[in-house]
């Protein structure tokens, strides 16, 4: 187990290095410098700006310097907001995005797992078809459609909840969380249905039933443990999706989180901001994938066994 964790951590390092390198050079070869928007700037000012941001050094030196900054947790200054660093922008946006992602995940896991397990209990009956059709709808309805439709119906027509904002009015977190979570709820429903279907046909479930255990004990105690393994493995990659989903949801609901910063930085060509947030996102995603890998091995006796056998 320990060796497995170490080897996975060691695998994550080249991934991060590749991310940083690709992003860094992509941003540097991008046409149009960060200061080309200001037209009537005298050359001396540009020179001073370039010196300030180390743009006058050779590119390999800039790259090494950037790596050095990263190792020290510095993501660099923002070109767009002078005097502010990417770190400050991340520190401002991250708690909001994290909170949104947390609620969305809560929505996804509760609705998704319940629907999936419920459907798996009576496969190929209406109890299966109805939640699974709803799940298909959730998968096919992109968040940028789901969000506005929810706003239109519940925010504008019924006026039950605020249409935008974050933490200003009571209830304004409900729609963003549902918008972001619904697609994952649908995926989780399909995954947990598949997992449960497989587990419920195993011998040990038959044994549990033969012992005369009540059905809910069989499902919740014996079935769920094995049935949810695919769900746990999906949570890591889902997190990456939540981040990019937050681009759309934060834009729709005007939430001042990281996703909205990122999209704005993309439009403003705020290169250091893009670079910094990309590296930051990538680190988070690699970390979560790592975590979900380790947890899935940890909770799955079969995988643990394979590991001990020396694979």
């Amino acid at each position: 187990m320990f060796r497995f964790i170490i080897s996975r951590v060691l695998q994550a390092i080249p991934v991060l290095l590749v991310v940083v390198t690709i992003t860094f050079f992509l941003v540097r070869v991008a046409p149009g410098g960060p200061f080309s928007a200001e037209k009537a700037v005298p050359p001396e000012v540009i020179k001073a700006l370039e010196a300030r941001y180390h743009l006058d050094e050779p590119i390999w030196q800039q790259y090494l310097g950037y790596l050095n900054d990263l190792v020290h947790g510095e993501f660099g200054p923002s070109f767009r907001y002078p005097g502010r660093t990417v770190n400050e922008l991340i520190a401002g946006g991250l708690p909001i995005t994290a909170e949104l992602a947390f609620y969305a995940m809560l929505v996804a896991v509760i609705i998704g797992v319940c629907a999936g397990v419920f459907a798996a209990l009576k496969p190929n009956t209406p109890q299966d078809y109805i939640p699974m059709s709803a799940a298909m709808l959730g998968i096919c309805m992109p968040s940028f459609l789901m969000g506005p439709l929810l706003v239109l119906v519940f925010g504008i027509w019924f006026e039950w909840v605020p249409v935008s904002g974050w933490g200003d009015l009571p209830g304004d977190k409900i729609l963003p969380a549902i918008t972001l979570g619904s697609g994952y709820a649908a995926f989780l429903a399909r995954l947990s249905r598949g997992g449960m279907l497989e587990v419920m046909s195993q011998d040990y479930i038959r044994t549990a039933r033969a012992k005369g255990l009540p059905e809910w004990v069989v499902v919740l105690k014996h079935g769920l443990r094995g049935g949810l393994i695919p769900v746990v493995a999906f949570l890591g990659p889902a997190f990456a999706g939540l981040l990019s989903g937050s681009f759309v949801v934060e834009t729709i609901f005007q939430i001042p989180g990281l996703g909205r910063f990122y999209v704005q930085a993309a439009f403003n060509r705020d290169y250091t901001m893009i670079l910094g947030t990309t590296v930051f996102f990538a680190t988070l995603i690699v970390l979560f994938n790592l975590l979900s890998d380790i947890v899935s091995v940890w909770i799955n006796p079969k995988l643990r066994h394979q590991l001990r056998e020396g694979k």
Partner: protein
Amino acid sequence: MSSSIPAAEILEYAEKGTSLWQDAWIRLRKNTLALFGLGVILTLCLIALMTPFIAPYGYEEQNLLLGAAPPSAEHWLGTDIFGRDMLTRIMYGSRVSLMVGFIATGVALAIGVLWGTIAGYAGGRVDAVMMRIVDILYALPFMIFIVLLMVVFGRNILLLFLAIGAVEWLTMARIVRGQVLSLRRQEFVEAAVSLGLSRWTIIRRHLIPNTLGPVIVYTTLTIPSVMLLEAFLSFLGLGIQPPQSSWGLLISYGVETMEEYPWLLLFPGLTLSITLFALNFLGDGLRDALDPKASRD
């Protein structure tokens, strides 16, 4: 549903000996939802191809006096704020959306199948290196990279194809490699080797055709995710640029005015959702038909 095929027909097939494809077609035909999906997709493709001839109005035709009007006998899906016919705009948008879906998937297909076959057939160190590259790329946050690419290199439709295709080939490569690994040891490949066929001929004539089943299934499931990605980028303003139009772009315009003119959001949204629905149903159906062993997760 299961009894919809006459016993005589099954017997007839059984006597002739059914090929993989006939067998799959029999199974697919029993799947109403998948057939519905196939029908929708074929109809949409036909409409997209014929749009310049059958669109009720011109693409740029405005009617400023009319403005944004709800659906009516003249404009079945209403008009936008410039009085442009929504049905016409959705039809022209379908050309771009479907094209992105098919071409980007084609790019992914080409890279993935080649990569997977070579890795699987070569085996050993080549395989290890090639699959490690796939592993590393897998871990990259690609959504973010596409946004980055679109920002850095401008919002170019060709680049969009490449960027999306470059993301989606990874799973394809893994699937194909797995297939090739198991095929490689089979007798017909050994026979081909002993006949003195070149490696390339073996790959082209014997290995790739045998991986077609899973590849077709996965391709069908990739198209909707590619279309979703395009719509997502266009919605953010980083994908298709006006005057071209795609469903994602129409949705993002619709959102701006949804309070006053909800039909401008509803109709493009509905079109996109139905298309994605149909493709997913078709993909699931094909998976059941071509690859009965694969579990439905």
